[in-house]
């Protein structure tokens, strides 16, 4: 089954710091903005949930039609929207990025290495 997924890391103040369209479905032109809309809207739910639970992984917090939003909240309240082991791996990658002294927390992640790694993980887990 051709599935489609959108993965976004959201920093403080709801600023997206990394975006990737992953999945095997052929790209649709409006998919990107639809996904953004859905994920953006899901932030409300996440904000409520994040403080009520200690779990990092919040499974299907929100859904829109057949698109399900899952979230992984890091300790620093940076959200990973998209599945658990995938999230964990990406979290590790993200921490590596954070350790980079040249990376300003909260700014957009532009590292191509990060991008390829995330996409590889997406292929592996999703």
């Amino acid at each position, binding site marked *: 089954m051709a599935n489609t997924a959108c993965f976004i890391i959201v920093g403080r103040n709801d600023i997206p710091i990394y975006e990737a369209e992953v999945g095997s479905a052929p790209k649709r032109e409006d998919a990107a*903005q639809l996904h*953004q809309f859905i994920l953006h*809207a899901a932030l*409300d*739910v996440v904000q409520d949930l994040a403080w009520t639970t200690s779990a990092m992984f919040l499974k299907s917090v929100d859904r829109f039609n057949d698109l399900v939003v899952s979230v992984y909240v890091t300790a620093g309240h940076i959200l990973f929207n998209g599945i658990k082991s995938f999230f964990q791996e990406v979290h590790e990658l993200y921490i590596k990025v954070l350790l980079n002294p040249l990376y300003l927390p909260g700014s957009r992640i532009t590292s191509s290495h990060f991008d390829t790694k995330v996409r590889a993980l997406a292929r592996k887990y999703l």
Partner: protein
Amino acid sequence: MVEAVNSSLGKMLLEEVSPVVMVLCTPLVEETFLKNGLSFVETLKPFCNFSNIDVPVRTSGDQLYRLKKFTLRLFNASDIKQPNVEVAKQRLEHVITQAGEKVFHDLESDPPQITDILSNPESEIAPTWFQYYNKELIRTLSFSDHEAFDHPVACLLVASSKDEEPLNKFVDLFNTNRLPSLLNDGVMDPKILKHFLLVHDNQDATTERTSKVLSEMRSTFGNNECNLLCTNSSKEGNVEHQANPWASFKSSVPAEKLGFALTGDDIGEIKDLMQEFASRHIIPYMEQKVRDLNQQISATRKGLRNQIKNLWWRKGKDDVPDSTKGSIYTFSSTESQIRILGDYAFMLHDYELALSSYRLISTDYKLDKAWKHYAGVQEMMGLAYFISDQSIKEAEYCMENAFSTYMKLGKSGFQNATRCGLWWAEMLKARDQYKEAASVYFRICGEEPLHAAVMLEQASYCFVLTKPAMLHKYGFHLVLSGDHYKICDQVNHAIRTYRSAISVYESTTWSHIKDHVYFHIGQWYAIVGMNDVAVRNMLRVLDCGNQSKSTQEIFLRDFFDIVKKTGMKHEVVGLRLPVINMSSLQVIYEDHRTYASQASALVEESIWQSLEDDIIPSLNSGKSNWLELQSKLLPKKYKESNVCVVGESVKLDLEFRNPLLISTSVTSVSLICELTANSDDLKLDKEPSSLSLETEHNQVTTSGLSSFTLSEVDFTLGGGEKKLVRLTVTPSEEGILKIVGVRWELSGSIVGVHYFQSVPTKAKTNKAKRKNKLTPTDALKFLVIKSLPRLEGSIDHLPDKLYAGDLRYLVLELKNNSESPIKNLKMKISHPRFVNPESHEEELTPGFPDCLKKGPEQNTVQRETSRTSVFAFPKDVSLQGDRSLRWPLWLRAAIPGTMSLYFTIYYEMENVSSIMKYRTLRMHYSLQVLPSLETSFEITPSPSRLQEFLVRMDIVNRANSDAFEIHQLSTVGCRWGISLLQPVDTILPSKSILPGQGLSCFFMIKDCRKPGIEEEKTTSILPSQTDTKLITQDDDEKFFDIVNSPLASFHESERSCHGTSDQLSPNTVDFILISRLAKSSNPSAEQDLLKILSHHSCHNRIRSSIPLSWSLDGPKTMYHDFSTSFCEIKLKMVIRNTSDGFLSVSINTIDGLPDAAAPTPSSGNLSGWRYVPAITEEMKLTSDVMGSRLGKPPPSMESSPPFIWSGSSSTKVQIQPLSTTEIPLQVSVFSPGTYSLSTYELVWELFEHENASSATSGTCQGYPYYITVLQSE
């Protein structure tokens, strides 16, 4: 939380679930009431709501309670039917369209702020027309067959007193044929309460007739069931009602026109009539019915026995296949009766009874699988739970159940589900469960877009109302809703929703979202014709670099279409296309510093300053003068501001970047400037603000008045391309020039403006330095002073790539276009090693390479080398007008590498009273110097001749592609004469050195210095002796002149560059090798053939550490008759002191064999006499090959026959500097043979002065010297 009854759902239920009164009236009645612009039903409608009816009611129980609020619903008999779906749809659409037209005018205003939305009271968040829409939506479901609350409770029969035979009319009215079909086909009970009303029109009916008819009616139908209604009492028909009761019911007609014939008394009468009708007739009737039904049902259905019976009976009915149709229940069936009981109880606000009957019936319906009925009952249960403030959970459960059951029915149940959903949502809202309400709205979206749009929008408002507000969801649902509105062409609504959504997304960085919202709202604004608003919104998406190329194309195309539609050029401040890189902003202006080219303007100021240090007036004297002058001429305020000159352009470099993937054309890029006259300095302090405003507005006109001129640049930026653009402004009047911003046209249709105020300030905020700090705007502010001469300079044909050693003749052309002359020109060059100005202005007569050659008259040696790198032009050089000064320069690429040559020319203005006394012209050129020939020299003293030295020259061609011909090698100075040992042609037949090729040549140089003779005398040797031609291709070619200007001065600078501490050491030789590019190497580069390369090698030391040279002179071959005596041979040793010190040399001769070469050390005591074992053989040999013996004595002979040094065995001599001494020596030979006379050593000591004690000393072994002595015949 609001009390359930008072909540909006409570009110809605009171209105919607209330007794229905069917109205049957004659045409004349309608006619009577139409005089007021209202139908009969409409006239009565406002008076059907009773807020305090206060009627005591007793239903099932014994308890009496009082009804407070009560409503009647009046319907014309013709309306009592299930509404046509299509008609209903159209009506709903109409509602929306109307609402859309109303909002149209608000659309132009700015979108609301999110804080405003949140601070709005709850009721104002959602537009009011939603309630109306919802009501209409619910009404589309009225008179459905599975519910009973729409069944008419009573029937109002109305006839006019003007009717013929009113009594018959009443009978006719209730004729079954004319009754609604629902009553006839058994869904509704046709046996209902009847009430008769006679209408009397005060305007045109007589009271007598009316009262007669009334009494007839009363006698026929009963006293209680008949009423009289007098109406239209106002004869003139101009009554105006202050608060028109009909206004809210009929909006299509202006409110003042309604009911103008009805007086206050009439209205009072209607009110009383309705109140009486409700309280006296309907409520008691319903009460009675409830009691009856309750009794009947208790008898048949309540109790254990009845229950079992019922169950068994139902089971039997399972076989009926068509049970889901629902039409099986007629009004008279038990189920319907129970339902009616429930609904009546509900309407009479006896919710307990209603609930119990609903519960009873719901299991029955469930067993019958009559799902629609089941859902309807569940729905009512939910509402009953809610309104009686009972278990919330139960209520929700029932609603959920009803909703999902309706949904299960598929399309047919959807409308019911919608109504159920609306109620459910209202219920949740009343309980402050907005989030859940939103999800309910979302669930009832359905497939029809318009319906979905409204529901989504309602959902979005719920998200705002949740605590805390869920703004993300709010925005998302608004966008979804807007999209749906757009699908059904409700553009106004679409814009309205997006406009609200913008408030959420305004500050977001989610690019796709932002682009989507702004782009679409822009498009839609264009559809409704608000092009300017459209453009404003579309501007936000222009910077859509992250979108795909096709999307960008769509964005831009639509944008420009809309812009075109507006038909004017919009001026947009902060247009993001193209993006301006403010950090790239660089201002280039010329005050006293002027630049020859752009490249020179970009060179760091410090380089120029260090270069100009010693040519501009020195700090102490100059600056004080300058400051003084400045403070006199300039207001203090502008002391720090930049200065520029009238007529000279101020250049500004700015980088434009195209964020898109598609190319964009940017045209008419120009600066926005202000030029204010500083005629009155005091005024300026206050004026700039007002002035700047003015100038900003008529910026075009000011430039038209030519107080300054602006350059315009057009260019096209490819996808993602960056371009550095140079913009200029040329002031033509004195004053204060401010560069305010930049403007450009995008694709010829939109004007972008960018103001520079936002330049990031780098200035320190140090308080102490505040006075000197230049704010960014100051950096763009110039004091324009009156026009000054400006020198322009260029160097013609300066190559950018050349070989090391390349020698070029260049011309520096200086030009002063203004009329006032300049004087006192000085020039400084950063690399004097590379460039050498000619000392006088003249054209070269013989042409370039030939001028370097030696001419007969050019032999004079000019030793004029100015060590300073400042070159002062002759005093009489003054430039003015069109005349240009062409000054010859020599360029020689001294070392390989990339070189930056900086020239700065200082000049002073004559007769100009200005703050500027002098200016400098700065020129910058960069050269790439490629490696060419590399030479190294090794000089060794010649062993045979004093004052002569062997020179080995190694040449390697380091160039990549070109071959070189070596032409001439010269020694510098007059000391050394040079001659070629071997013609180069023999070593190098090709005559050119190919890339990578190495070559060694040998020369002999001769020291021509004479002892004790001073410098001037040494020049006696012919200069030509210092040069040697290496390749003799055309013999008549003259030597290059190395003692005259260019080469000699370049050599000077080379020397000083290579200068070391021992540079004064006398034993150094400087060589100049002159080569040229080989002719055949590159046919395309014909003009390169004239190139001449000179390679300078300085301070080549003679590879000899001893300060002396000597030679032994004497006969080589002698004949002597050994039979008479031994042979004495006189020799002469010539020793030359090659140093500048005093030399003392002692010669120690060693007899015998002192060296380790002795073949027979055992015979040490036989020193002097040796046995030669193979002498006979040797003799034979010698007789055989006499010749070879002479040239090369056999090794055995070398050490064999003895000789002794006769005379003094040790001689000591003192030798003056650079002088020669001869010492006579003598050897005695005892037998014929060949002898090596190298058995001596020279021990020398060198003193710097005659009496100096410190000395260097050393020992030298003798050179081999062979002498052959033969037996004379």
